[in-house]
């Protein structure tokens, strides 16, 4: 995750301490919900450690993955601010430790600390742009390009510079890039043939994130970069 998206990293120590002092620590095990779609926005959670999935049901009840958030990020603040039911659910993907703050206390804090309100605004602005650029990409870039770009971004969350294990199934990956699952499977097959990724049950393994980044930086359709399979990291 880029520092730009890390809410906590952009606050001063005293601001962070004061915000933390307004809430209490919560621990949520993997698979449990932190928030549910349709509920009123009565609290926010600042994630201290662990990863959450943001999922939303469509009108048929099918759940779709909208995004992943991790340490330093806020979840649930939008419904607190616009006072409408939550538009998505937040699900713990790993063990999550967070600080839960009641809506009123959070809003009071924003009114007192305009710099913090500004940071929340900046996060909202970046998320809106992210959503819109994905929609534009869905209309103009090939699925191969989108999958590669998404994997690089996910590798930043789930791994270091060497190896990354991305614990998402192919269906979830397809939802993140706004493409059909079969098309994404085809893209992954071609990335596998180039030794850039390995697919295992419920996850995608990147042996060398650096190779993946170089492949994503290539002009469209070049496909010249092949994965080292993790060997270059051992030099």
């Amino acid at each position, binding site marked *: 995750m880029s520092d*730009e998206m890390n809410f906590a990293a952009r606050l001063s120590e005293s601001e962070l301490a004061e915000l933390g002092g307004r809430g209490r620590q919560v621990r949520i095990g993997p698979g449990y919900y932190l928030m549910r779609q349709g509920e009123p926005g009565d609290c926010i959670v600042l994630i201290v450690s662990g990863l959450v999935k943001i999922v939303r049901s469509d009108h048929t009840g099918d759940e779709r993955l909208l995004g992943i958030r991790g340490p330093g990020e806020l979840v649930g603040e939008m419904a607190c601010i616009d006072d409408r039911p939550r538009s998505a659910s937040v699900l713990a993907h790993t063990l999550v430790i967070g600080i839960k703050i009641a809506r009123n206390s959070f809003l009071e804090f924003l*009114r007192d600390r305009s710099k913090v*309100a*500004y940071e929340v605004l900046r996060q*909202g*602005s970046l998320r*809106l742009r992210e959503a*819109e650029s994905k*929609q534009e990409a869905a209309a103009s870039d090939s699925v191969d390009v989108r999958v590669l770009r998404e994997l690089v971004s996910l590798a930043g969350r789930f791994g270091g510079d060497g190896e990354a294990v991305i614990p998402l199934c192919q269906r979830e990956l397809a939802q993140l890039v706004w493409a059909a699952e079969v098309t994404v499977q085809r893209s992954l097959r071609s990335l596998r043939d180039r030794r850039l990724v390995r697919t295992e049950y419920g996850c995608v393994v990147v042996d060398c994130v650096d190779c993946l980044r170089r492949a994503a930086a290539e002009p469209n359709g070049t496909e010249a970069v092949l994965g080292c399979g993790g060997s270059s990291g051992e030099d």
Partner: protein
Amino acid sequence: MNAATPGSFLTHIGADDWKYLVESGVARSCEPNEMLFRHGDPAGHVLLVVDGWVKITINAPSGYEAVLAIRGCGDVLGELAVLDGRARSANVRTLCETRVVLLAADRFLHALEARPRIAIALLSHLAGRLRRSDNRRVEQAAHSATERLAAFLLRLADQQGAVVAEGVEISVRLSQQEIAGAIGASREAVARGLRILREREVVITRRRRLVITAPHVLESMAADVQFDTEEPC
């Protein structure tokens, strides 16, 4: 001042805070069809629409300028780029004589700091846009590209269809790429969808024209696909 456009920033912000913002900036009158922001420009200011109408557009690869939204009195324009320091993401052009207030970036940010209520109102406004964007994404994904194409063609027929001998004719001045952008699909998916509709004899395509010969089939394909007409930008 005119009434605020529904869904505009002014519906989230108090009248005195709006007045404070307006008085912090410089008023300007604009001619019809004047370009106020250009995609890719660096962001130095925000605009408040005091009177009149503007359209928000993006340049499609074919050179066609696609309209994303219409904004009017009480709206703030260009705030995303000022907030996150990136370039303008779309063009803004006046539709008629329009009065705007130009607020320099530092003044705007100062106002947010001086009056946190304004920042919270802006957040509420952004939250609405994020909700619509997420909603569109999820609902789009729930329908196939061909279903969305069917719904889109029906809407076009509603707006600009003309009855001819074979059915309803729409002069589609949109390329496949532009239709793809409108329904959130790839160009290949649009081409495939049109081929399917032609083969099933639901539509006839001619040079830049399209005739719907079996509207009822299209309607059943479109089922319950909904388009959010209030697109964020």
